């Protein structure tokens, strides 16, 4: 193997940390996004516009603001952060778990948006048919709605995952830029660009970022085609 293909320990650390953060953020996100997607797609209740606005807020807020809000609430001095520390001994500020929370909050609207759209596109009359066959609401959701929403859930997951991989502003504000703890790929690239003569190393990480994101998109497309083919007999 030519030596330029070999990753340095620092690069490996940044990649592993980025994947770890993005996967944990997805794990936090997904159940909540599926639930919220269903609520927004299928229920109407007073105050729905407000809930809708709150869900999409991180999409339009500057990430620095989101990060700062997280620091204020979840930081060791913040109300929730202090409570977590005193009760469970959990500290997320300046830890990789905190980076995952920041990434989850910022990517949540993307996951909800895709999942909501796919649930809205499911024929409610098929769900009605399931009800007449004896399935209650929860069972209809698990056996009919959820499987038919898989393409949307997948699309939402990939979007959220990719957004989490690229998260910068909220992360650096909330959990700072600590190598081996919170220094994900974008933060590592940023650090390298601040040091003269490290342009090559920055470029290498940039290529790695592109490969990771593109790989996620391709994998989702492939998976999506297979699902559609199985369910509808054709890919489109």
């Amino acid at each position, binding site marked *: 193997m030519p030596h330029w293909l070999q990753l340095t320990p620092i690069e490996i650390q940044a990649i592993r940390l980025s994947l770890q953060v993005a996967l944990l953020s997805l794990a936090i996100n997904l159940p909540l996004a599926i639930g919220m997607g269903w609520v927004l797609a299928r229920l109407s209740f007073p105050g729905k516009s407000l809930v809708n606005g709150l869900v999409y807020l991180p999409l339009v807020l500057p990430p620095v603001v989101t990060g700062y809000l997280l620091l204020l609430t979840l930081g060791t001095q913040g109300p929730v952060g202090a409570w977590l520390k005193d009760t469970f001994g959990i500290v997320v500020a300046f830890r990789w778990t905190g980076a995952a929370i920041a990434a989850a909050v910022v990517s949540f609207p993307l996951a909800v948006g895709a999942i909501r759209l796919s649930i809205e596109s499911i*024929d409610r*009359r*098929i769900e*009605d*048919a*399931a*009800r*007449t*066959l*004896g*399935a*209650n609401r929860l*069972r209809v959701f698990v*056996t*009919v709605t959820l*499987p*038919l929403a898989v393409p949307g859930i997948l699309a939402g997951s990939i979007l959220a995952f990719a957004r989490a991989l690229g998260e910068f502003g909220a992360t650096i504000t909330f959990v700072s830029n600590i190598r081996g703890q919170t220094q994900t790929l974008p933060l590592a690239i940023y650090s390298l660009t601040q040091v003269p003569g490290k342009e090559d190393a920055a470029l290498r990480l940039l290529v790695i970022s592109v490969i990771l994101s593109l790989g996620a998109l391709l994998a989702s497309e492939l998976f999506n085609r297979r699902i559609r083919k*199985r*369910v*509808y*007999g054709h890919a489109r």
Partner: protein
Amino acid sequence: MRVEIDVQRRLGQTDIDVQFAGQSGVTALFGPSGAGKSSVINMIAGLLRPKRGRIVVDDRILFDSARRINVPAHKRRVGYVFQESRLFPHMSVRRNLLYGQRFSAPERRYTQLDRVADLLGIAALLQRRPHMLSGGERQRVAIGRALLASPSLLLMDEPLASLDAARKNEILPYIERLRDELALPVIYVSHQFDEVKRLADMLVMMADGRCIAAGTVNQILARPDLAPLTGHAQTGCVIDTRIARHDERFALTWLRCAAGELAVPRVERPVGASLRVHVHADDVVIALDRPTGLSTQNMLPATIVSIDEGHGHHHALELDAAGITLVAHVTRKAAHDLSLDVGSQVHALFKSLAIDDEPPHADTDATCHETGIELS
């Protein structure tokens, strides 16, 4: 088995206000599009809530506004076959069929997969996905899926409306079989009088959200005032028969009913299958004695039950042939000359009998799969 329906609700421009009772067998809700038929059965299924009313199926109160009872749809045990099959696209035919069974208590199940697959002729389709089925097959699977949930009432909302004539005739015999073989009350919605005439035991006619007439198919067919709604300009009656035997020599099929036997051109259905024959009142000839030397050979002995004299040049007779109601038109002069009266013993001769049956198109499904044509 008894079904009591009394529902009221305003929907858009239509005030729905319908009361009727049904029994075992097929009760047809018949009327033009927009009459509110589908809304009524959606209320029975629990998919739509009546503003006021009462729904009782087999002594179970499913809805009663006065007593604040509203059983949710999934606990009603009311099967529903929709116009557009609504199969689950992500499940095989087998899993579609078995979907409702797991929600029904084992002691209440009255049928199983093998029997239903056999009854509906879908045993060969079990491994397929819904998108690989023709329209007719999809509808049969939808019927099977509803039956396997062991419902105490089956609702069918224009199950044949999205199918072409050949495919309708492919499915109708299966619906007749389930009517005959399962003692399950069925409420069948349609705006096609031909389907209703063929399947229904009781008929509820709806227009503008109201029930305007109810009775047996014969009672409805005998009423000239309803002719514009049924689309049958002539009044008439239907006779329920079973196929007794096939006559190869003369290419005939003999049908047996309570009053005797009738011969019709060869029908490609098995012996024992039930068949409904439709007779126009104008095609019935009345004879006092059993005539001989006639080319018309279909005749049944009957008794005159009533004579309606209000039809211009002819009288409308209602006859009873061993429990079967027949109607006949005779001229006033003939009625006078033969001194026809209530209670007279006569013979009813049929100039023609109509059978709502086409030869089954068993091979059409296979053909369309080979050529890959989508028929939905």
